[in-house]
């Protein structure tokens, strides 16, 4: 809606052929075609749907991105042969998108600019409404783009109108022009778009998702629904991925398993490891709990497995990493290498050992981390600080953290309360505590050690602020309960319970 009038944002092919164009008012559109179906424009929803489609196109190549209001980029360099060639890939893509209900034109070329033009202007020549495919031969963009109008270069409407006024209507009208003159009149943009389309300069584009360096793909001849088939596919994908990692001396830290379903959506599962790992059996075991939650919808057509995070892992590290051999010999490790699976043969279902068979510490950490979150696995490490709370910090479990000797210098409580609890204490004339009031009644204090003054670290105003220095007392009551109390110096002078001793 604009200024109280309803404007047409988009029209489909039939409406377009009746003369309804974007920008026209709804009243005019209804005058042209009385029985049109009108829906409110939802740009955000459209963009989201386009993004999901771009994700689904990941079944052809990991490099996909949405473009503008109705376009999807796919970089199929090096991927086309997996689908049987560029023509077959585009035909399959257009077929699927039309099945989902979208009018589609596809173009393929050496450069993004040429492909864009091919999709919008050349593919429609074949089939105006939908289903057109235009593939430009390598290096053939100069010839192919020549007869197209200048807007096919993705230049702005103002520039296009100006060029039109000057009589430059086709792209090949621009070829003989000196570049300096073009720049003087239109700035850098027109010349740059021309160079990008012809391949003389680069056009940096970013994919929607980071492209992993190691990725393996499996396409099913027919859509699969059941979990054993998915598990079998995973078992088949892991060895080649791990071999690829081994060839570069890497181990996986994060694996992402993506499913491309027949309804045009994509789902992902991921697992993480505490240390780089390229053992297919261990990685398969980490996926097992999640496989049960896969929603395969009406069927999964393609599955890809990628190592989104990989870190160096040498063969020596793999040997040292095992703390102790497993109690029972793991049958999976002793079996002969994967048999070569002939085309069309039934996939043998993998024997996925239960998690109780693993005797390795890093496998345990991986299982705990994948279910509870790796940030829940912690070690206690020292920090050089006098302040009690800051003397220890929590670090990730796979970071080494040797215990410092100075931790044992002074008696310290076993449990340190996160928030010191105010308590009321009666003191004698020297200021030493004599009785502790907790709940009902006063508990006389039988033994006292202290005071130990711990001042805040004044050089950290942000953390410690203007917290007053504290005098810490170790007190023991008559029954043997031992506590760490502190008294804040300064105006308020309140008593706090900070820790419990054994």
């Amino acid at each position, binding site marked *: 809606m604009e200024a109280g009038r309803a404007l047409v944002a988009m029209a489909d092919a039939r409406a377009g052929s009746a003369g309804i164009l974007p920008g026209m008012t709804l009243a005019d559109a209804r005058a042209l075609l009385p029985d049109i179906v009108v829906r409110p424009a939802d740009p955000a929803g459209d963009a989201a749907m386009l993004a999901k489609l771009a994700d689904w196109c990941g079944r052809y190549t990991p490099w996909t991105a949405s473009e503008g209001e109705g376009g999807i980029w796919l970089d199929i360099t090096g991927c086309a042969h997996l689908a049987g060639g560029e023509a077959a890939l585009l035909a399959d893509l257009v077929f699927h998108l039309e099945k989902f209900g979208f009018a589609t034109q596809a173009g393929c070329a050496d450069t993004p600019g040429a492909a864009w033009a091919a999709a919008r202007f050349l593919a429609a020549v074949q089939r105006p409404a939908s289903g057109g495919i235009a593939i430009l031969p390598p290096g053939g963009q100069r010839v192919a783009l020549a007869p197209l109008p200048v807007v096919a270069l993705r230049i702005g409407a103002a520039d296009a109108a100006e060029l039109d006024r000057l009589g430059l209507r086709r792209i090949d009208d621009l070829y003989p022009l000196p570049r300096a003159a073009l720049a003087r009149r239109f700035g850098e943009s027109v010349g740059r778009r021309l160079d990008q389309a012809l391949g003389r300069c680069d056009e940096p584009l970013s994919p929607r998702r980071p492209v992993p360096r190691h990725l393996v793909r499996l396409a099913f001849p027919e859509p699969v629904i059941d979990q054993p088939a998915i598990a079998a596919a995973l078992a088949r994908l892991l060895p080649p991925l791990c071999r690829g990692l081994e060839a570069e001396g890497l181990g996986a830290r994060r694996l992402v398993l993506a499913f491309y379903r027949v309804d045009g959506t994509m789902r992902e599962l991921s697992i993480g490891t505490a240390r780089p790992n390229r053992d297919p059996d261990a990685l398969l075991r980490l996926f097992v709990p999640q496989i049960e939650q896969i929603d395969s919808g009406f069927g999964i057509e393609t599955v890809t497995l990628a190592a989104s995070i990989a870190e160096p892992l040498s063969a020596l590290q793999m040997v040292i990493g095992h703390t102790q051999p497993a109690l029972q010999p793991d049958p999976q490790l002793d079996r002969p290498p994967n048999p070569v699976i002939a085309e069309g043969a039934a996939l043998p279902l993998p024997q996925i050992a239960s998690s109780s068979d693993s005797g390795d510490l890093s496998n345990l950490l991986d299982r*705990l981390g994948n279910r509870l979150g790796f940030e829940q696995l912690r*070690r206690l490490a020292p920090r050089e600080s006098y302040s009690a709370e800051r003397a*220890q910090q929590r670090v990730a479990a796979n970071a080494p953290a040797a215990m410092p000797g100075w*931790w044992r210098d002074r008696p310290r409580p076993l449990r340190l309360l996160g928030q010191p609890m105010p308590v009321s204490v009666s003191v004698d004339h020297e200021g030493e505590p004599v009785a502790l009031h907790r709940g009902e009644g006063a508990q006389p204090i039988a033994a006292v050690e202290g005071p130990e003054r711990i001042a805040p670290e004044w050089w950290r105003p942000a953390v410690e602020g203007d917290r007053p220095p504290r005098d810490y007392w170790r007190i023991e009551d008559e029954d*043997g*309960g031992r506590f760490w109390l502190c008294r804040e110096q300064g105006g308020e002078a309140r008593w706090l319970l900070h820790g419990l*001793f054994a």
Partner: protein
Amino acid sequence: MDGQGSDFPEDSDLAVSAADTPGTDQPPAARLDRLGHDAGHPGRSDERIASLRVLVGRLAPGAVGAGSRIPLGLEALDRALGGGLPHAALHVVAPGDGSAAATGFATFLLAHLQRGSDGPAFWLPARADLYGPGLARLGLDTGRLILVEATRPADRLWAFEEALRTAGLAGAVVELDRIDPKSARRLQLAAEAGGTTGIVLQTGNRSAIPGAMTGWSVAALPGARDRNGFPDGFATPRWRLALQRSRIGQNGQWDVEARHDAATDRIALAAAFRDRAPAPVMAG
């Protein structure tokens, strides 16, 4: 009787698995009673008891003195335990009062287990309040300690079972208040399978946890005074250990102190003598 082999269904309770003879629909307890009374001869009751013990032993491996022991260093205590704390088993430590003495005893046990193993020790706390310097004072090597800070008890229980199953760990302590009998049985089996000793530290509610190899209640005792009369309880904590539930030995109560031995740089348990100077030579 042995037709079912050495495994019995994991989910079954001990009493139910005594139903070896098919078709019997009497409750198992009654059947055991009947076995005892069938004899009729006073002389044969000993044999009956012995055969019952064998039956229990076969049904519950590890229940009757199987497995190795870890001596705790205090002679009277180790004698009562039949040599020491049973290894690869489940133990429960509950607080006898409102102090952190139970935590101290659990720390001492974990430190003791750590010394006998190369692998790391695990602690699954209920809150993030463990303090490294305090653990270090009781002999725990925090460089070989991994914390699994799962806030939900169900997650802690699952992680504890996973840790027990893993070979090569020194031991694991979990802070849980209650465990249902089926899970306790699974934990005991997991500990035996993985060869890992597990300790359940109850922090609040002291409901009984059945099926554990030993059950302890630990209360704090006032510390000793050193030879100058100054309180020594912070350097050498004192506890009253009560072994309340044990499948392998007799119950008892001991007053102990955890003393730092300068010669070996370890924390050792010693008998605590009240109102006397601490014993110069410690046991173990």
